[in-house]
């Protein structure tokens, strides 16, 4: 990233290619609609490009990148909540929503939306993205112990919300 800040196009390309799949995993774990994931992927890359001067070498790129991505997702979810609050959803095709476990995914997304942000983040990283506790803790900037507590509480809350 430091090379990209100096205008090195090859280093910038390598970085963007490198973070692409990881960013995709991050977005897919948080956003149920695949159409939205594509839009948010683009939006995150543009946001990253516009704020690349804020990256501070030699700190790891991941916390910086995922803070931007989390912000883009949070904005999207806020917009979506506002839109859903105003709309009557009559155009949804039930067959489409039910395909490939769509209903279960929707229920899970709704339950995750109701968790406190830190708990949601913990369970998404550990349970949905499958990161180790240490890797997830490093990503959110906390200790593995604290992350385990958050994930445990989030898991208990999810079980209550999903009624099982």
């Amino acid at each position, binding site marked *: 990233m*430091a090379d*990209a*800040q*100096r*205008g*090195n*196009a090859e280093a*910038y*390309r390598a970085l*963007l*290619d490198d973070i*692409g*799949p*990881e960013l*995709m*995993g991050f977005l*897919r774990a948080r956003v149920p609609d695949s159409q939205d*994931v*594509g839009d948010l*992927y*683009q*939006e995150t*890359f*543009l*946001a990253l*490009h*516009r*704020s*690349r*001067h*804020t*990256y*501070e*070498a030699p*700190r790891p790129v991941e*916390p*910086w*990148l*995922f*803070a*931007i991505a989390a*912000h*883009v997702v949070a*904005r999207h979810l806020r917009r979506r909540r506002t839109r859903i609050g105003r709309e009557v959803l009559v155009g949804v095709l039930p067959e489409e929503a039910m395909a490939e476990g769509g209903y279960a995914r929707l229920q899970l997304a709704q339950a995750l939306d109701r968790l406190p942000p830190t708990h949601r983040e913990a369970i998404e990283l550990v349970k949905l993205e499958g990161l180790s506790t240490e890797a997830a803790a490093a990503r959110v*900037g906390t200790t593995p112990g604290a992350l385990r507590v958050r994930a445990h509480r989030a898991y208990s809350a999810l079980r209550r919300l999903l009624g099982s």
Partner: protein
Amino acid sequence: MQTPPTHERLVAQLIADVQPVRPLWSPRTRLALWLALQTLTLGVAVELGLRQDLGDHLRQPLFLLEVGALVVAGAMAAAVALRGAVPGMASGRLAVTVLLLLGSAAVALVSLEPVVTIRSSWGFVARGAVCVICILGYAAIPWSVLFVAVRRGAPLDAPVVGVCAGTAALLFAAAAVRIACPIDEALHLLTWHAMPVALGAALSGVAGARWLDRWREA
């Protein structure tokens, strides 16, 4: 995990636009520079202040604790604002809690000052207005500098960063005016020193929401 089909085109567009950028100075460096500016502010307050008994007051623990709490809380608020302008570096709840505790401690210490009966409402307001003007005057340049500094970054929570920038500048200004103002009455200090800080910080939050949110266009 696959990237979307638009990845190649998107990367090509971004690379076509890649220009060298000057990395932001670290929050620590920018905080140090801002604190140097604030040291000047406090120096001006000592030099131009109306208080004749400053030497005596500097030996009073309550006075020193009041000014100390204001200065430390101001420095912490500035640190929170500057860190909040860098993605992934935002301060945790602990820093914000300590900041709130220090601010509350400053208010609690001020309320320990003697309460004097107000003889003339006009005099109370007139003397208070001078303090409010001085606080706003002392805060104007540091607030502008801090606001521009955080705007150069990319604050993710613009209103909170705005509140912190306002709080930082106004707490230092309140400390400067506390040094300069010869009135040591709890009601005067709470009304004309503490209230402008609270209101000004709220206004700074509004300004932050309006002018610090760079993500709207992203």
